[in-house]
């Protein structure tokens, strides 16, 4: 989620995010430039929300006493990181039984992918990526306060969580660290770690860390890997090979999730498929590479719903009989406000404006067309934090109904989908969801077998 834009959109962040520890170091450096940190030897950090790459970040000094100092990093008014400095006794954390033969890393670290079972008791050491001079150059004021080796130790915690333990599928949640005396610090002696507890219910990993400069505890989540949709073979076992013959399905947002699954269902039933992607070209081509060798017709088209419809769909060589509109921005937002003007505008643009533009495009072509509008049970159930999403979806429903009656060539088909297994709904907390194909297949059958208009 930090380096690769395509991979990042399949994580809980939904887009590239900065390293949380990087934000902390920036905050501490900024503070150190203003006032000495003398005496503050305990640092607690909670990473509350992702900070998107290039997002404006506000550093707030929230409270300051003789023995504690609290700062926050905020994005769009919401707290993303809480940083608490304290004058406290030297940490009582003692690292025991570290088996350095398990993992010893230095230099460029290959990203590891661990199962929860593999994380139990995992231990080792990671050498800082650079020498103290590099950290001192990047964070001169902070290094002057806590020592450049300690700065390197903090930075190494990001490598620990993101690359080693849990590794690839991780989210840094919290760190509680004590700084040791600068005089005792040894350059590039490495940070030793040992996982002390792994809570399999919530996929939480607690890890003790220790170096010549820092000692403490790191908590992180081992998130689920991106959701994998059923294979074409698995789908074909549930679909008659001729039940969608004659259909040409244009699937907007077909590179993954429900769009990918719909493509497989239609293709398994003998229909032709045109997948569109906005950024996930690799994902779209992965789906295509599964369908075409099996004898299916599958074209891939770049299409950004926010762009000009006529220009982008003018390249179509097949005339669609059916359109599936799965285009969506990130659904689950982390802001604390009930309503966000920006979030609402983005949802509305995807679910209303862009949906209308596609229907209008095909209505002008005057070729009979059926359009699937996937609404959501969130419209009725109204889960917390989804107000803007639900408002936009209900507006889209109203629009789809009026398009059905007002555009002669276009028939719309509206269904409220429950929460289904996709990257968008991936969660650390176990959420009972229905199998997507069990929900989607009956709807697709109903959609394809209903009469079309003859405008």
């Amino acid at each position, binding site marked *: 989620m930090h380096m690769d834009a395509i991979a990042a959109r399949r994580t809980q962040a939904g887009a590239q995010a900065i390293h949380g520890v990087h934000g902390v170091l920036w905050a501490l450096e900024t503070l150190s430039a203003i006032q000495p940190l003398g005496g503050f030897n305990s640092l*607690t950090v*909670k990473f*509350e929300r992702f900070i998107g790459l290039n997002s404006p970040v506000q550093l707030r000094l929230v409270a300051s006493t003789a023995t504690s100092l*609290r700062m926050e990093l905020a994005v769009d008014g919401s*707290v993303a990181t*809480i940083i*608490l400095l304290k004058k406290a006794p030297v940490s009582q954390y003692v690292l025991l039984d570290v088996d350095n033969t398990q993992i010893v890393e230095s230099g460029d670290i290959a990203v590891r992918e661990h199962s929860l079972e593999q994380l139990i008791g995992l231990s080792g050491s990671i050498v800082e990526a650079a020498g103290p001079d590099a950290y001192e150059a990047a964070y001169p004021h902070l290094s002057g306060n806590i020592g450049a080796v300690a700065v390197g130790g903090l930075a190494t915690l990001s490598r620990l969580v993101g690359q080693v333990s849990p590794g690839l599928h991780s989210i840094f*949640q919290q760190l509680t660290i004590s700084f040791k005396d600068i005089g005792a610090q040894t350059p590039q002696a490495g940070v030793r770690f040992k996982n002390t507890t792994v*809570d399999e*219910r*919530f996929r*939480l990993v607690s890890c003790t860390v220790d170096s010549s400069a820092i000692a403490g505890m790191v908590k992180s989540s081992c998130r689920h890997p991106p959701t994998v949709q059923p294979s074409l073979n698995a789908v074909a076992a549930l679909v008659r090979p001729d039940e969608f013959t004659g259909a040409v399905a244009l699937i907007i947002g077909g590179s993954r999730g429900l769009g990918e699954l719909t493509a497989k269902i239609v293709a398994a039933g003998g229909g032709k498929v045109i997948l569109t992607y906005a950024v996930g070209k690799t994902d779209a081509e992965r789906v295509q590479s599964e369908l075409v060798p099996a004898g299916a017709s599958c074209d891939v088209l770049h299409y950004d719903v926010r762009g000009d419809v006529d220009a982008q769909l003018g390249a179509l060589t097949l005339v669609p009989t059916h359109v599936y509109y799965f285009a969506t921005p990130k659904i689950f937002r*982390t802001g*604390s406000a009930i309503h966000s003007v920006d979030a609402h505008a983005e949802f509305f643009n995807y679910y209303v404006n862009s949906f209308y533009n596609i229907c209008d495009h095909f209505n002008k072509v005057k070729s009979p067309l059926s359009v699937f509008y996937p609404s959501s049970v969130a419209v009725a159930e109204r889960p*917390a*934090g989804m107000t803007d999403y639900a408002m936009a979806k209900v507006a889209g429903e109203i629009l789809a109904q009026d398009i059905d009656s007002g555009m002669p060539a276009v028939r719309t088909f509206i269904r409220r989908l429950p929460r289904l297994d996709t990257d968008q709904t991936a*969660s*650390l*907390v*176990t959420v009972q969801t229905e199998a997507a194909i069990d929900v989607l297949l009956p709807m697709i059958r109903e959609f394809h077998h209903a009469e079309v208009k003859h405008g």
Partner: protein
Amino acid sequence: MQDEAIYTALAPIFEDVFMRDDIVLTPELSAKDVAGWDSFKQIEIIIAVESQFGFKFHTRELDTLRNVGDLVRVVREKNSAKG
């Protein structure tokens, strides 16, 4: 264990989880009343409570937790069961 003692024990847990000392625990207090009380915080609370009281919640018990009052009730019941 009396409810009052449970509330007293829960107070520092909420203070630690939310890093705030101004949250007043009442039976009606729920996620909608505290900024940032999302599923991640819920997990933190649950794990901290388990550590504090020395038991594990069952999944079905977690499903019943709608507010602090529910949490106190489950803690009381599980403590009673421990004897």
